[in-house]
């Protein structure tokens, strides 16, 4: 067989190039090598389609790409907030109103969110991990984001004012992720009362009380996806598992390897040896399930 003809990458169709560019990642698209390789790639990197999803969480990667581009920029004279504002300006311009999702770094502030809301009113999702003492700018931004479907926020924004405002302004809102260390019944109530139509809830890497989990499962009738993984202390009881069986996806693994719990929330036993779990866990048979297939027999 004759070998297939070699076709140069420079001639790859524009929309295929754009599909590739949308997978490269924001740091490279902004100041990496890809947009500089040739004219066609330069154009593809600026296509709005490649800017529908913007991930700026890895600020180090962004700035190292910038440094690798051989600029003389000194990071000390520009504050990170200003630099981020500059990045968002570029992203918003290139996305041309078609940005769907943006993931912000931890030092982002409310002004950045407001900026995005004004420039990309069709935004469907954002991740804003910053702790917020005041939230009026945040609420102002929410008022402009009527297409919002979901958000990831710090637990400081889990209050009635903010969440009810979201519920009022964003009719399509179905997804919430919370960055929290500990989730109790009260926080669960706020979420359930303010956002009763949630379909997806993610509160990973936090310790959640059993009452909170059950509150979510009882009150959020349209819930389909729940991720409460990464906890240190298990609060998963057989009741929880039973109630969660109606969900399409339920992710509840601990942050440890299979079966390695430290504390039992039921009897308060601390530093459990996984080979000799406390009796209450054995009684509830939870340990069997958590230990995985190797102990299924």
């Amino acid at each position, binding site marked *: *067989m004759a070998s*297939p003809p*070699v*076709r*140069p*990458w*420079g001639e*790859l*169709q524009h929309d*295929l190039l754009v*599909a*590739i560019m949308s*997978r*490269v*990642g924001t740091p*490279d698209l*902004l*100041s*990496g*090598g890809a*947009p*500089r*390789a*040739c*004219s066609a790639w*330069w154009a593809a990197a600026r296509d709005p389609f490649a800017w529908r*999803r913007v991930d700026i969480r890895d600020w180090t990667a962004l700035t190292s*790409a*910038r440094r*690798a581009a051989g*600029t*003389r920029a*000194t990071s000390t004279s*520009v504050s990170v907030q200003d*630099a981020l*504002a500059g990045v968002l300006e*570029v992203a918003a311009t290139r996305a041309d109103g078609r940005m*769907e*999702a943006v*993931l912000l770094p931890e030092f982002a502030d409310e002004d950045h969110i407001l900026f995005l809301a004004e420039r990309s009113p069709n935004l*469907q*999702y954002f991740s804003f991990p910053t702790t917020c003492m005041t939230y009026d700018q945040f609420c102002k931004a929410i008022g402009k984001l009527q297409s919002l*479907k*979901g958000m990831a926020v710090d637990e400081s924004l889990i209050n009635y004012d903010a969440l009810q405002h979201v519920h009022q302004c964003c009719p399509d809102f179905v*997804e919430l992720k919370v960055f929290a260390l500990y989730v109790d019944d009260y926080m669960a109530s706020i979420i359930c009362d303010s956002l009763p139509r949630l*379909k997806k809830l993610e509160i990973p890497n936090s310790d959640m009380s059993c009452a909170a989990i059950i509150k979510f499962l009882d009150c959020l009738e349209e819930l389909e996806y729940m991720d409460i993984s990464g906890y240190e202390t298990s609060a998963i009881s057989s009741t929880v*598992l039973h109630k*969660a*069986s109606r*969900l*399409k*996806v*339920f992710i*509840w*693994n*601990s942050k440890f390897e*299979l079966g390695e719990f430290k504390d039992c929330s039921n009897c308060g036993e601390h530093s459990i040896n996984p080979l000799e779990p406390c009796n209450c866990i054995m009684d509830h048979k939870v340990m069997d*399930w*958590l230990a*995985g297939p190797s102990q299924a027999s």
Partner: protein
Amino acid sequence: MDSTADPKGKRPLYQEDGLAYARAAAAAASATAADEAEAKPKPKPSSSSEEAKPEPEAEEMPPLVLVAEDGVEVRISRPAARMSHMLRLLMEDSCADGPIPAPNVHSDILDLVVQYCEKHGPYYDPEASERARNPFPPFPVELTPTVSSIKPVTYVDPDPHGLKDWDKDFISLDNSTLFEVILVKRILNLLDLSSTPQDLLDLGTTMVADMMRGKKPEEIREIFEIENDYTPEQEAELRKENAWAFED
């Protein structure tokens, strides 16, 4: 054979999309290449072409015959062909019995793509991809099959058939082949432009994107053998936009 050449008494009209073209070509080809189909002792679709099809299970039907641009025929089994939106439609319309031309695709590349489809075909669930295509934002969620609360969920294997490893080996092709593979998957998916997990287009473009990430322009030009027609004006534009980064 005439009934197959003109299924349901319709003459395919030429449209902008390739599907009608492929249908017309397939219909014409099957009319002229009637001998190809005779080798299989399969139920002749001529009787069923008039009605809406409940056809026999796909596994019993003969493989499709794709004809590459160099004239070489490549066979693809029906379950594997279901992975291509276009081929699926052809099969549903009973236009897939004769040779199906695959223009602009060399047989080596077509072979590779067929290999991919044969591997993934048995596990392909079009509805799952549909679900994956409209996931909750922002990034595609790999919805596992209904998770039972009785079973431990500490680790759910999203890849029970070991397809990911196979994919990784498969996609370590040299650049020009990778290029062709991306293009071909595009052609076969003429009407199915969105990418789904495990989709070959997704696989290929992700692979290329991974190769591009974190590299300097010179390195990229070397890897992909691109001619440098990047102009100073374009560089100036880039720097102007990224004024936050470039402090001169």
